[in-house]
């Protein structure tokens, strides 16, 4: 998806920031650090670039080289976004963020959106974070993701092509793999619960 945003034609300048939440890094993935990582992908020009450089020099001269606080970071993020006509912020696996950090992050992103009409936010996550997203972004649009049989088939074909034990494969086994696995996997995800009551749901 990020590649598509990168490659696609667009009449305006496009800036893309991304973040992948990971339960293994939960302690370090605070709202401040996530916003900081987004900020460093979007600081590209003008006064905000100078402000970041100045703040860094100031922090460096202080004992311990203090880091920025979230409000300072947010001020810079809003400035950075304001200098860009089109910004996409993509955050993967929101559910892997600790709840206390998640709410602070969503509040910060909401604040960012309010200052910029050209900013779009893309989230992925398990259905249970839907309620929090809907709470902060009332008009958010939900697209349920489930494995499509043709996607599974395409994936399997690619993996079979790359099989290092090709001598162990027969035409029959290959055909069985391509027939049975897509059926089984598609069936596993038929009953996905719709958690977002206040979001528009794509069918």
């Amino acid at each position, binding site marked *: 998806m990020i590649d598509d945003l990168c490659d696609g034609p667009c009449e305006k300048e496009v800036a893309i920031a991304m973040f992948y939440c990971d339960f293994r890094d939960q302690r370090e993935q605070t709202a401040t650090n996530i916003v900081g990582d987004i900020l460093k992908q979007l600081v590209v020009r003008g006064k905000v670039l100078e402000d970041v450089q100045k703040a*860094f020099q100031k922090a460096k001269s202080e004992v311990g080289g203090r880091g920025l606080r979230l409000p300072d970071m947010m001020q810079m993020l809003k400035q950075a976004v304001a200098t860009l006509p089109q910004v996409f912020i993509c955050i993967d696996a929101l559910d892997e963020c600790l709840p206390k950090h998640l709410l602070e992050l969503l509040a910060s992103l909401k604040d960012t959106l309010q200052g910029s009409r050209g900013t779009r936010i893309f989230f992925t*996550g398990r259905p249970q974070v839907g309620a929090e997203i809907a709470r902060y972004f009332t008009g958010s649009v939900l697209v349920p993701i489930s494995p499509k049989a043709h996607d599974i088939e395409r*994936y399997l074909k690619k993996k079979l092509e790359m099989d290092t034990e090709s001598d162990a494969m027969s035409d029959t086994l290959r055909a069985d793999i391509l027939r049975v696995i897509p059926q089984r996997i598609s069936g596993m995800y038929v009953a996905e619960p719709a958690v977002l009551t206040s979001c528009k749901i794509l069918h």
Partner: protein
Amino acid sequence: MDNTTYRHSVSIGNDNVNCNNVTNSHNNTVNNILADENPEIMKWLSPLDSRGKHHDVRTDRVDGVGNWLLETNEFREWRSNGGGADKAVLFCSGNPGVGKTHLR
């Protein structure tokens, strides 16, 4: 239309793992000067760095898988700002292992 180099801020740092140097038929140059020149500032802003993870995801992804999302009206409208500020947020929801991270 200009034939100019299309650089995105998504590609932070000096490596070319992401969308850096993508040629596009439009004049859309967004160049991350901070990332190119100030690795120390980058680390100070946040110890986290999504660059390596994005590289892993791109490497693992099978071309074409998940393309259906890009064809949906919801995605297109979100991408083009068609729905205005009210529809600025798109949430792709799914259970573990359905392929959310690897959507093309």
